[in-house]
């Protein structure tokens, strides 16, 4: 109860009260932490949240949760999901960051990351000025969860959230000259940046070159036009690949002659981003380029790959038959281990990137899943939280 100096202090008392929730919480601090901490002493080993979320699923800061309050169609194959986060969500993210979202489908939670499309601390008058967040999802033909979100998710569904993160962000204040290069759903993080600039009323010289197949496929098309009309310093330059073919970087000199003077944010398919990186490097200005690579939602057919052990800071190349446990041990990583036959659950770690495969049944696991390293192997490049 006493602070470190030995005397009694309000801060010391508060820290003591918050201690039980500080241990277990993955979410940010809430104003109620002291109360939750005090209550945790009678609900131990659970947290009060474990009882409260039975009453209202959003009353838990142990795991961030949210409720889908609106689903808006953007194009024929994309939607905006408006989510009301529960306790502990930090609304002070940076425009351009993404969140993790967990959705329950047939008893299993599926985790994906999506860029936030809203400015920080956004309120929507339609929803009684409550603080909300939004993401936009485009259905991918082979994407199981994106198709589910676009076609099947119901308003009112409870989702899990992971705190906003990512370094693809618009600085505050924004640079004087900006270029956005996006394609397809790559527009989503840039949308958050544009909306933030619009809301703050600070729109510098911004050129946005966006590619999509046709005019109907442009996510947020109307809003882009409105922004274009509202802010003379903002230019939305749409490129339709259905008519004109892929946007060639050689055209940049013509369409945005001063692109070399601009700070550039690019987001889209991997191939496009690789080309852009090469182009900027060739121009000798790689520092002016910011790139966001989305995780490719695909059924991994890869066998083996580079396994990265994030916390140990090591990585190595393995084949599709070597278990992640063996891989870690041969790389000298301190791996948790036990029975080595998939029964004791002591070797479980979280996959943070890429795909792995359960060797017993061939099931594929992906970022956000916890896997038993002794019976899992790399299915393409992957990163483990160990």
């Amino acid at each position, binding site marked *: 109860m006493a602070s470190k100096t030995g005397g009694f202090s309000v801060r010391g008392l508060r820290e003591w009260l918050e201690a039980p929730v500080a241990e277990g919480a*993955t979410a940010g601090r809430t104003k109620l932490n002291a109360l939750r901490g005090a209550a945790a*002493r*009678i609900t*131990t*080993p*659970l947290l009060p949240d*474990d*009882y409260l979320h*039975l009453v209202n699923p959003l009353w838990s800061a*142990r*795991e961030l949760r949210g409720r889908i309050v609106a689903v808006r169609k953007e194009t024929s194959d994309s939607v905006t999901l408006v989510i009301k986060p529960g306790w502990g969500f930090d609304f002070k993210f940076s425009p351009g960051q993404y969140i993790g979202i*967990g959705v*329950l489908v*047939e*008893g*299993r*939670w*599926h*985790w994906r990351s999506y860029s936030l499309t809203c400015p920080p601390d956004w309120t929507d008058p339609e929803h009684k000025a409550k603080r909300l967040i939004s993401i936009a999802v485009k259905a991918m033909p082979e994407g199981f969860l994106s198709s589910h979100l676009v076609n099947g998710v119901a308003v009112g569904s409870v989702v*899990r959230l992971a705190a906003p993160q990512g370094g693809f962000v618009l600085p505050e204040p924004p640079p004087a000259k900006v270029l956005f290069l996006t394609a397809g759903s790559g527009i989503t993080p840039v949308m958050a940046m544009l909306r933030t600039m619009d809301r703050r009323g600070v729109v510098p010289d911004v050129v946005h070159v966006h590619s999509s197949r046709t005019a109907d496929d442009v996510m947020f098309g109307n809003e882009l036009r409105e922004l274009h009309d509202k802010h003379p310093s903002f230019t939305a330059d749409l490129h339709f690949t259905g008519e004109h073919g892929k946007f060639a970087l050689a055209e940049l000199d013509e369409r945005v002659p001063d692109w070399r003077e601009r700070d550039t944010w690019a987001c889209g398919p991997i191939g496009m981003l690789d080309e852009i990186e090469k182009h900027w490097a060739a121009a000798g200005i790689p520092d002016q380029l910011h790139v966001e690579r989305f995780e490719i939602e695909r059924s991994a057919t890869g066998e083996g790959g580079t396994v990265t052990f994030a916390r140990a800071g090591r990585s190595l190349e393995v084949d599709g038959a070597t278990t992640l446990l063996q891989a870690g041990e041969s790389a000298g990583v301190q791996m948790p281990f*036990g*029975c080595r*036959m*998939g*029964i*004791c*659950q*002591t070797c*479980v770690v979280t996959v943070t990137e890429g795909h792995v495969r359960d060797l017993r*049944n061939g099931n594929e696991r992906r970022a*956000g*899943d*916890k896997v*038993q390293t002794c019976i899992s192997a790399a299915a393409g490049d992957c990163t483990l939280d160990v």
Partner: protein
Amino acid sequence: MAITDIKAFAHLTEADIETLGQELDTIRRDVELSLGERDAKYIRRVIRAQRVLEAAGRATLFGSRNRWAWLAGTGLLSVAKIIENMELGHNISHGQWDWMNDPEIHSTSWEWDMTGASSQWKRAHNYSHHTYTNILDMDEDLGFGILRMTRDEEWKPINLAQPFANLVLAALFEWGIALHDLDAAKSQLGIPKDQWFSAPTKDFLRKAGKQVVKDFVIYPALTGPAWKSTLKANASANLIRNLWAYAVIFCGHFPDGAQKFTEEQFENETQGEWYLRQMLGSANFEAGPAMALMSGNLSFQIEHHLFPDIPSNRYAQVSVKVKELCDKYDLPYTTGSIGKQYLLAFRTIHKLALPDQFLKRTSDDAPETSSERKFAGVTLPAMPSLPAGSEWLAEHNWAGVDPVTGERRGLRSALQEAKVALKEKALHEKAVLREAKASLQEKARQEKDLLQTKAGRERRLSRILRRNR
């Protein structure tokens, strides 16, 4: 000397065991593929019910100065603690619900309402016990280091105290488990036993401290004037949970028929043999749905040991298929009422408190442990058409298939025949003894008669001599 060769003991060939393993793999895969919404709903419903029961129990105890409120509150809290411990804590920590990908219902994050830390328990239980099930000197759950549960273990004078130790273990079961797990955690990290204060000890003290403070300080204090009766209620609920958990766990591996194994068996074990060891080392008890829930579905201990990470609500369905396999391979499926199963364990505890010279059977042929040598002294009927594959079967004239019915003849038949043969052997020995005794008695009578005749003759002779003097 417990089972050293499970193939010989099971009366199965290598190929048999491999196919058996594949069939069990198929059962697992079928369940895994069919997991979905209904299963997820089941566990969430149990969690909700448990939390409601606990909250109701705690709330009722505010009025615990009333006798009926005390009884109701204690009952609710006991049931809540039992479900939390068995169906939730035990099974979630086994990873049975990891497939849901729910971070809150996951083996890596679940903490249970017991004095031991879940992480330490997982090491001792999921790793040691479930990998080395019933192997002497490797599975520390065999008697929990306190009781002698098989005559493969040497008798020590301290075992005389076993009946008393058993009672203490039952009443303080959660503490027994916690200390047992702490020991396992220490030995895993190579911390010497006498080094009292270490990181695992700190984890243990932190967890146990929270539990004690909650049940014995904070809740009684919260109920104010009812603090004394609340304290008693909480102690009673913990005691009831302990006794129940103890009984269920003792029914899992200690009734007659649950076999013990040696390190020799483990050394070169195949996956199929691992399955077989789990099957032969475990015992079920009969339970309806309510009883199954209260025992964390450990009434299906055999199924649990075959598939420790398959959701417990599926064990009933799996058990039907496991029983079919037992019939097919003629293997025993050890089960009985909970009362019978516990009494068998209870009998073993008390029997083995005594030194070996008081015990009739040997460790090759005892109710709680046997070995393939059990069958060696038994003359088995000679069988003409032997399948190739097992030298042991050939050596013992054991046909894999009954020539008359065409059915597989395995361990179950062998055990029955051994039982009959042993009984006959005993009867025969008894008869031989009786005959020997009778003939000895006869001989004695004859000698006595002879002596009497001789004495009579001497008496007559001496009379004649006296008269002629």
